[in-house]
């Protein structure tokens, strides 16, 4: 059962600590490249002029908002089927970053909507379903925090996340299913209606956000592991080995 070896918090804790800085470095490099190309190299848009540059923040954050929720739901399925503690910890580690990206997607969408459509907010299917996503994230966090029994909290949280994931396809396909104010796909598997010079920075920013979210989730899951398993023997051993390393001479 080699796959499950890293499903144990005690083995994942040091692994996460080793991986997180690498993802942070990747995020910084991709983000710097994306911002440079997006702000300095990408041309103006033929319809919107300069203001379209909000797309380099708006689309990556909106994609992350949906993607993180889907990943939480996948961990939710694993938590309920394999009964792994780490899966529930990962859901908890991802949720705050999901909230951040959802808020950013709504915020940048409002700032983009005002100068182009003429309004900060409309009860449009795309926007309304994204707002529901934000409430689902916050609802999950409130639920898990409300329950003292961690085992039951994990189960209820996993269930809520799985049920709530039904909202994600609604967000994604809303522009196709209904006549919405929000425009359709600019980038899809079938092709793109975006000039390559504009698509490139957007994709770089997206990958930067992925790497960022992975790094943050790994660091946050380390905090959660320690918070939850502070009584466990392996944490005490961690203490021992760490002090061995720092005061090697005395040991």
């Amino acid at each position: 059962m080699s796959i499950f070896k890293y499903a144990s918090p005690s083995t994942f804790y040091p692994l996460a600590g080793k991986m997180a800085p690498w993802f942070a470095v990747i995020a910084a490099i991709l983000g710097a490249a994306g911002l440079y190309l997006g702000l300095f190299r990408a041309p103006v848009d033929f319809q919107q002029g300069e203001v379209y540059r909000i797309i380099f923040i708006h689309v990556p954050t909106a994609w992350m908002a949906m993607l993180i929720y889907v990943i939480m739901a996948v961990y939710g399925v694993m938590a309920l089927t394999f009964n792994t503690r780490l899966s529930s910890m990962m859901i908890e580690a991802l949720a705050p970053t999901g909230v951040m990206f959802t808020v950013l997607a709504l915020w940048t969408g409002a700032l983009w909507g005002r100068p182009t459509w003429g309004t900060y907010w409309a009860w449009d299917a795309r926007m309304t379903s994204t707002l529901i996503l934000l409430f689902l994230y916050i609802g999950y966090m409130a639920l898990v925090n409300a329950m003292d029994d961690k085992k039951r909290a994990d189960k209820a949280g996993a269930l809520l996340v799985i049920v709530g994931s039904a909202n994600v396809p609604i967000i994604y396909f809303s522009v196709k299913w209904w006549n919405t104010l929000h425009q359709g796909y600019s980038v899809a598997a079938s092709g793109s209606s975006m000039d390559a010079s504009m698509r490139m920075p957007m994709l770089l920013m997206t990958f930067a956000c992925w790497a960022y979210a992975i790094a943050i989730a790994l660091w946050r899951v380390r905090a959660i592991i320690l918070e939850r398993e502070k009584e466990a023997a392996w944490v005490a051993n961690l203490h021992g080995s760490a002090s061995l390393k720092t005061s090697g001479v005395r040991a």
Partner: protein
Amino acid sequence: MNWSEFFSMGERAFYVWGSFGAFGLAIIVEILLLRMRLKKVTEKVKI
């Protein structure tokens, strides 16, 4: 390149920089909060 023109973003500075600024601010806040959380818990378990 003309910096004042760059910052004016075609007279849409508020919207463009409001978006990029919020993105940067959110990331800084999240990293700081996470650092505080990690510091607090590592002090508690005395690693």
